[in-house]
């Protein structure tokens, strides 16, 4: 399983440890501050979750440009809807749920040709290199080089197989197998039981095993 998420969350975790509070409690404290009028506290939440938000969106959308845009949108929606968050300690899963929902919506709109205008995207990103990639090719905006050990044919085959997975299976696979989030957190994000997460991951793996059988030893 990938440990990327652990690496990405290193800084925020370290911050939480330094504050002497569990991460969820620290989140709750920040959420309370925001709700009390300290909107700057939200900056800390952004910094804490921005890597994961972009990473999850990137896994679902295939390019960093769209991923950054969707993640920005998710943060804004989270800020607007913060008052409706029932358990402030669950900010992380709640935010990721927004990210995944927006990403799926974005995918659907892109598939039906109603992708958002470039102007909107440009508005987000006057920015770093990784932001400004063409969006036509799902992998075109890849900020990081693909694993060189995979042939282009194999990459395409894996990509197609993942793309064809039902949403729930793909989400479970992305969040658990690729992003390395704990099953419990994945279950919270997907609003289902841990058992169902395991089942969806299994179904995804089984499908991939069948689809990629000729590439497996």
């Amino acid at each position, binding site marked *: 399983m990938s440990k990327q998420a652990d690496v990405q969350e290193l800084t925020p975790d370290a911050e939480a440890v330094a504050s002497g509070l569990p991460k969820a409690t620290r989140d709750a404290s920040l959420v309370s501050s925001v709700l009390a009028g300290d909107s700057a506290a939200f*900056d800390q939440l952004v910094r804490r979750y921005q890597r994961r938000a*972009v990473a999850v969106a990137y896994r679902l959308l295939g390019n960093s440009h769209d991923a950054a845009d969707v993640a920005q949108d998710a943060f804004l929606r989270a800020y607007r809807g913060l008052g409706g968050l029932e358990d402030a300690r669950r900010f992380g899963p709640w935010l990721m749920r927004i990210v995944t929902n927006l990403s799926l919506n974005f995918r659907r709109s892109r598939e039906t040709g109603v992708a958002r205008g470039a102007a909107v995207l440009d508005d987000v990103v006057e920015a770093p290199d990784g*932001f400004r990639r063409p969006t036509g090719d799902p992998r075109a905006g890849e900020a990081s080089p693909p694993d060189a050990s995979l042939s282009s044919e194999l990459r395409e085959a894996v990509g197609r197989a993942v793309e064809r997975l039902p949403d729930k299976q793909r989400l479970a696979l992305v969040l658990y197998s690729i992003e390395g989030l704990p099953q419990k957190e994945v279950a919270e994000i997907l609003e289902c039981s841990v058992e169902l997460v395991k089942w969806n991951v299994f179904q995804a793996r089984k499908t991939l095993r069948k689809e990629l059988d000729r590439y497996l030893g």
Partner: protein
Amino acid sequence: MDAAGDKTEQQEFLLSQYLDGDLDEAARRELQRQLEADPKLAARLEKLRQADRLVQAWAGPAPELDWDRFAAEAARRRAGYETWRRRSRILRLYAPLSAAAAIALAVTVYFVAGRWRPAETPPERFVSVSIQRADAWRKDPSLGEAFARVSFDRAATLGTMELPPAAAVAVAAAGVGPPAAEAVFEETAPYF
């Protein structure tokens, strides 16, 4: 799915959980025993593991962006939203007041305008001028600036005409008029 298929599915589910370290100790040992005894099962486990690794290799590392700029952009959007929200709040607060003020203003204007009359000019009077003989016009000083109606008694001849008093006076002074007529200026009721 038949019973054999069910068993295979269940076994494969166990393999998936085994990969994730989700099995309890007893189940893990039992599966390990089966794996040692069944090469096909072991091969299936290996393929699941390989498929998982393939997906991870395909996914690659997450994008690395300029996170400071990303956070700054998020703050900028949030500030934009806050500005919009403040304006909306003000609008929501003052919209009813503005509407009430507009209505009050409209009502006031309606009543004020309804009661307003232009500055009253002196009631216009017309003067009936009966012309009995044409050889004499008489001026009536009471005409003032009011319009005068000059009516000719010999209606069959000239009928009635309205003239500004000055004109009527001028006509009278000039002695213009039907012959053998006499103008009689009679003040009558106000014109309106």
